[in-house]
């Protein structure tokens, strides 16, 4: 268990999240993938805090705040999703009305 391994792990999770965002057609599925990406970033913080940083507390605290922010984002996102669901009765990514030339 070295810093490098933790970072690699975090990045693997990040790429898995990316993969999920790119392939999931369900909007909530995409949100889940984004959760995984954000979580990976937190791992980075904690790993750096543990292995390298002169000020380890700050890093860990940053990730706690980041969890809170994630929660906020999710809350708003889900609110919008629900509003959308009321309108379309679907959460498919492909549903769209904005006209593109």
């Amino acid at each position, binding site marked *: 268990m070295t*810093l490098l391994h*933790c970072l690699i792990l975090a990045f693997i999770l990040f790429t898995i999240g990316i993969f999920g965002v790119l392939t999931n057609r369900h909007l*909530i599925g995409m949100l889940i993938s984004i959760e995984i990406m954000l*979580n990976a970033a937190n791992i980075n913080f904690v*790993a750096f805090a543990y292995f390298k*940083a002169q000020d380890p507390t700050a890093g860990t605290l940053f990730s706690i705040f980041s*969890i809170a922010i994630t929660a*906020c984002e999710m809350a708003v996102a*889900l609110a919008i*999703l629900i509003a959308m669901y009321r309108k379309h009765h679907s959460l498919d990514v492909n549903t769209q009305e904005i006209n593109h030339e």
Partner: protein
Amino acid sequence: MILNIPFSDIVFYFVAVFMVLLSIAAVSSKNVLRSAIFLIASFLGTAILYLLLKAEFMAMAQIMLYVGGVVVFIIFAILLTSHLGENKLSTPISQKFLAVFLALTLLGVMAKFLFNTKELSESITQKSPEASSLIAYGERLLSYAPNGFVLPFEIISILLFMTLVVAITIAKKDNKEEK
């Protein structure tokens, strides 16, 4: 040889594999609810990882906030909106292929970068145990010192309040508005 590996390392690799697999399952499962469950499991793995990294407070927060908060939130949303995974949405295989390609390229590039960065593999400084104590966190959080976190703490509370306001405004069913 194998005995030389510390126990924590074994747990780390085990947890890492576990997390990766669960995450893959979470993102590729057709059923959203199942995805959410996998997500919970993956987050639990993260919590274990935090424990290994001597961030007990963080592990706790992970479980409480993420698993207890965010994911439950998601599950609520799933239950509110979908008919329990009845409509299975599938993406074209070409898109999946491209996504894998893109993700792997990014991973490859970053992995190469991280491996090439010397200071990462060199740094093995262990942090002092008192830094990760709950008291330390608490003191930092409420400290007015130049590196204290009281200001972010205030801001995040505003942020949370604001989120409440806007999320409710958006999500609530408004009779006056609908007519």
